[in-house]
């Protein structure tokens, strides 16, 4: 009995984490190539709105996902274009787009608020779903969950095991050197920004068609983009670690819902903002884990040292600095 409950709990964690995993992977790819796309929070909302409206009007969920991905790609391309070709601050453009895409989503989606729309259906994998415990968690889900799981492995493999992935990392670490090797950093950065944007768009669609079905103001996906941005840092720009961060976050969210049951006097709004102080705290710990004095102190403590080693990740050296030839 206990096992069943736990597997249902963890299945919920995995399903709820899916959009955050996708957004985090998308942003990891983008940042690995040296571009910060700060607009995630708004992009997710705009693509969620797009997906819902398209799926509602055409009764075609796949088309909803495709157009949501396209929206994500366009926003990411805008950030990259302003940075790479117009030499504007990525943070500035990304921030403006965060606000603008959010307002655009509320404005265009206004007449579709609180409507019952199509949703993605569960699709258990035959045989695999019968694996005790794990089968329930990972293989009794919808197609998106499988897609996100495949993307985690795929991203890691692409980045660390293929020549193209090496070039991707080199563009983010040292664009001049890549340029000298005959790679055009500008086109690569543009390309990977768009790839990342596509994933963020799919993340948005996952919200409005699966995790928090429907559209409204607020939709429920507000703040998720910022969480994803922090998870990229938490994951040390490594897709697997970042995805693990997303699952951990989702677990804490579910845990929070249980806490709400135990502490009925605390208003629900307090639990909704709880992730954000946690986010600051995580960044604080991450930052301390990089400090030399802390590392020296941890030298004698075996377990602590390995925790610190796990937490450390190196930021792509050219992150946020647009490449120019001269």
């Amino acid at each position, binding site marked *: 009995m206990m096992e069943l409950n736990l597997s249902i709990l963890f299945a919920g964690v995995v399903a709820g984490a899916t959009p955050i995993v996708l957004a985090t992977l998308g942003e990891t790819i983008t940042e690995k190539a040296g571009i910060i796309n*700060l607009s995630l929070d708004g992009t997710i909302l705009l693509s969620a709105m797009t997906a819902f409206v398209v799926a509602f009007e055409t009764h075609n969920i796949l088309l909803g996902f495709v157009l949501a991905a396209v929206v994500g790609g366009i926003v990411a391309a*805008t950030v990259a274009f*302003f*940075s790479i070709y*117009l*030499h*504007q*601050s990525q*943070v*500035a*453009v990304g*921030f*403006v*787009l965060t*606000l*603008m895409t*959010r*307002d*655009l989503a*509320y*404005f*265009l989606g*206004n*007449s579709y608020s609180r409507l019952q729309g199509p949703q993605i259906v569960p699709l258990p994998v035959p045989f695999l779903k019968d694996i005790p415990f794990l089968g329930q968690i990972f293989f009794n889900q919808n197609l998106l969950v499988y897609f996100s799981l495949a993307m985690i492995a795929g991203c890691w493999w692409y980045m660390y095991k293929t020549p193209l992935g090496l070039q991707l990392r080199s563009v983010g670490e040292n664009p001049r050197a890549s340029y000298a090797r005959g790679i055009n950093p500008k086109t690569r950065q543009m390309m990977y920004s768009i790839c990342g944007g596509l994933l963020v768009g799919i993340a948005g669609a996952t919200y409005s068609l699966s995790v928090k079905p429907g559209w409204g*103001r607020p939709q429920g996906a507000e*703040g998720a983009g*910022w969480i994803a*941005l*922090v998870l990229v*840092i938490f994951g040390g720009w490594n897709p697997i670690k970042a995805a693990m961060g997303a699952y951990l976050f989702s677990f804490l969210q579910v845990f929070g819902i249980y806490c709400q049951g135990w502490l009925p006097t605390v*208003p629900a*709004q*307090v639990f*909704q*903002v*709880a*992730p*954000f*102080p946690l*986010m*600051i705290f995580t*960044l*604080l710990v991450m*930052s*301390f884990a*990089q*400090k030399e004095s802390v590392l020296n102190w941890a030298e004698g403590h075996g377990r602590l040292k390995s925790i610190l080693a796990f937490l450390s990740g190196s930021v792509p050296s050219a992150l*946020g*600095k*647009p490449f*120019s030839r*001269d």
Partner: protein
Amino acid sequence: MKIFFRHVFESGLTLLVLFLFTTIILLVSGAPPFAVYFYIFKGSLGSWIKLSQVIQVWIPLTLCGCGLLYTFRIGLWNIGVEGQIMMGAVFTTAVLRMDAAKGMPMLFMGLSCLAGIVGGAIWAIIAGVLKTKGGVNEIFAGLGLNFVGQGIILWLIFGPWRRPGIASMSGTELFPQKLWLPFFPVLRLSPVGLALALTALILTMLLLRYAHMGLNLRAIGNNRDAAYLFGLKPDRYMIIAMMFAGGFAGLAGGIQVAGVYHRLLPSISSNYGYLALLVVMLANYNVWITPLVAFFFACLNVGSIQLPMMLELDSSLSGVIQGSMVLATLAVYSWRIRGKTSGGTAAT
């Protein structure tokens, strides 16, 4: 003269891009574009009462914009203005709720504004210390604190400060009228708020233009290491810049409580903190242009309030126009300086 015409040409081009983009968006949503523009204009500058509402929005935008000028000078992205407004509002409310306040309304209203400044400054200093001592990027620190501020306000409204009987999203109980900032009867506009905003503007102009502080902030913002070698302490100046930004934002929150809503609302900051960032960016971080842009943005905000009623459109259209305006300006500006710069342009 040539420069003047180029500026006119660029502004015209920006407005044209903006106009085309907005019209397309409106056509997509199925709304009549010219009716929308007409309602926005009429709803913001159509009467004296509307104009006073615009000024009511202009006050917090200008205050927050002034504060942001300090942090942008030193190269900090103070995204936490929203939370700083909220904490200013909370501190102001706390002072006005004291029992003694009813006895000496004048004294306590003054105190409440000071408390607002302190509240905003504390919230900003937390973000600043997280940045300088904790190594946490100020964007994430500020953003996280915004959400925390929102949580605190909701907790207060539904918890300790709830209205007797029912706690609801409509906020805390209304203050007695003698604790309202004095206002013009028909326009409901508080001259005190206006005076405070103008004072903040003049103070900022003086400090940034004619005092050492402005130069030092800019020096650190442009080249931190060189400024350090020159004997300036970047960390200390960052905290000072955050303190100014938070103080002004907190004052804006205080005015919203004491002079506009006369109670604490969940949405007391009305997104002005985020909007102020756009204002300052569009003003190209210039002290003189900031109030003008703030006025224009305030017009858009107030003008779009009646869109839901008149045309069944969401009022977030103003945000779309404001955002696309900043982007269009950035695009046109960088088109002019194309090839003249190398590398990234930091916020200066």
